[in-house]
């Protein structure tokens, strides 16, 4: 017999009303990929850190689920928690050196640098590596704005909600980020004829 898949809202109601752990585990299963992937980009490819922050994100989400008023999508709310967790971590690690040098190798590189025979795949893999390095030179806020607007496909208003800042600030971060990326990704610029 086919099971009816419950919506996020129904699962949330079960967690809030009955403290249904199975319902919450289903929510985690549904959203873990998007949250972890977003945090990997924010963490400039540091997968271990990203997964730690993702776990923290879901713990905070569980503890604060009663306060989720559904004025945004559940995924957007999770992005907000995850981004705040990342910023909190970033504030703590001020004494650590930033990964802004070209030698910083994202965790993906080793696994993606080989076995791509086709030219398109090779190009995509190469772009991915270069982009991840380039994102690494952005400030945390700029990188977060780029990740929310492009990778998470959020509008500027939604990104402002996630980042907890005015829409104008999001636009400024994106503009500055693009200028930096333009310099950093110069090799990918189309040749002028």
């Amino acid at each position, binding site marked *: 017999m086919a099971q009816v898949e419950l919506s996020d809202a129904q699962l949330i109601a079960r967690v809030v009303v009955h403290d249904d752990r199975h319902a919450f585990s289903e929510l985690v299963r549904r959203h*873990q990929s998007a949250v*972890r992937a977003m945090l990997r980009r924010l963490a400039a490819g540091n997968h271990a850190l990203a997964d730690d922050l993702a776990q923290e994100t*879901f713990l905070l989400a569980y503890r604060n689920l009663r306060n989720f008023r559904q004025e945004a999508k559940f995924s957007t709310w999770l992005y907000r928690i995850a981004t705040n967790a990342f910023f909190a971590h970033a504030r703590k690690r001020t004494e650590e050196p930033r990964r802004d040098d070209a030698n910083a190798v994202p965790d993906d590189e080793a696994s993606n640098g080989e076995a791509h025979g086709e030219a398109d795949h090779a190009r995509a893999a190469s772009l991915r590596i270069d982009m991840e390095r380039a994102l690494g030179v952005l400030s945390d806020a700029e990188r977060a704005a780029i990740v929310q607007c492009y*990778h998470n*496909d959020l509008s500027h208003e939604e990104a402002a909600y996630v980042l907890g800042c005015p829409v104008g600030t999001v636009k400024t971060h994106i503009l500055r980020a693009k200028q930096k990326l333009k310099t950093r990704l110069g090799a990918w610029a189309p040749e002028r004829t």
Partner: protein
Amino acid sequence: MGTGTHMSDDSHDARNAGDDWVEALLRADAKAHDDEYLGDEGFTARVMQAIAVPAALPAWRRPLLFALWGLAAAVIAMALPDTLRELSYDTLRVLASVTFSLRDVAVAVLGIAAASWAGTLYMLRREP
């Protein structure tokens, strides 16, 4: 997830014409990531395991809260014995000089009870 479709109007405002290729690269990179799904690999189980631990907190947290409040009150009482005694005498003198009806006493008791219950509910509202 798409690749920035929501932001087409706004992004034009914030974008220089010369940044079109950067925009295209960002979209291409986002598209490449869209096709990926990160396998769970025990992530959900780890989260649920971590959730199970704090669930035991309220069992000892509530009496501890009351004990701490009581301790704080006792410390204050011991630190300010004269002030408290004088305050008590003054209060008693005022009360003794005023005549209360049964209705006044009932209203006062109800008021104190309401304030106590409201305070207790406020303290406990976030506990699962």
